[in-house]
Structures are given as structure tokens and as C-alpha cells.
């Protein structure tokens, strides 16, 4: 039973990570248009943050409707 609980926790952690991969991919495509440094500038950081926030707002709205 403890094994089952452990596996469930691992699977759930893995689902969270897969979601983060999906969001990073989507928001990186939207917000990072050129590579001229290894740092994110402030506009890119702001864009990434807003992208995630509005995407999760949309997701939560849809699940609630």
C-alpha cells in the first residue's frame, strides 16, 4: 500500500512536470523571439509571467464554467 502511495505521488509529480514543459514551450515561443544573450530581459520575463497567469486563468475559468 505504501508502494501504491509512493507511485501515485511520483505519477502526480510527473504530471505537474509535463504541464510545466507544455507551458514553458508555449510561453517561450510567444515571448522569446531572438537570442542575443543568455539572460532573459525584463520584457521577456514580464511576458512569460503574464502568459502563464492568463493561461491558468483561462484553464480555471473553463473548468469552473
Amino acid at each position, binding site marked *: 500500500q505504501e508502494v501504491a502511495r509512493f*507511485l501515485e505521488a*511520483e*505519477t502526480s*509529480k*510527473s504530471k*505537474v*512536470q*509535463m*504541464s*510545466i*514543459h507544455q*507551458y*514553458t*514551450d508555449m*510561453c*517561450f*515561443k510567444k*515571448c*522569446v*523571439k*531572438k*537570442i*542575443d*544573450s*543568455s*539572460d*532573459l530581459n525584463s520584457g*521577456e*520575463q514580464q511576458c*512569460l*509571467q503574464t502568459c*502563464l*497567469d492568463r493561461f*491558468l486563468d483561462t484553464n*480555471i475559468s473553463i*473548468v*469552473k464554467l
Partner: protein
Amino acid sequence: TIVREIATANVNELVNRLTENCFELCFTNPSSSMGSKDKKCIEQCMQKYMKSWNILSQSYVKRIQEAKAAGDI
């Protein structure tokens, strides 16, 4: 083991998405061979991507906890 399989799947997913994004950003007009400028672009792109991953990962976990606390999900 299944734990190792999950970890491998996670790393593969990251490498695949990194490759695709950095290929698109660094090779808009692919030339016949890869030069040092291209290599630098890939390295910088990879660092930018990992930083994005970290920012979004922290925000996501924080947001989910807030939504759970507020009873939204």
C-alpha cells in the same frame, strides 16, 4: 524501475522541446554547416530556456497552491 522511467521521460521531454525551440530560433535559414556563431546561439538559447522553465515552474506551483487555498480547484 518505474521511478527511473518517469525521470527519463521528463528529461527526454525537456531535451525534445529545447531542441525544437532552439533549432527554430538559431537556424531561420539553415546553412550547410554549423559554425561557432550557431553553437553560441544554441548555448545561449538553452540557458534562456532553462531560466524560463525555472520562472514558470515556480509561478505555476505557487499559483496552484493559491488556487487550492481559495477553493478554485
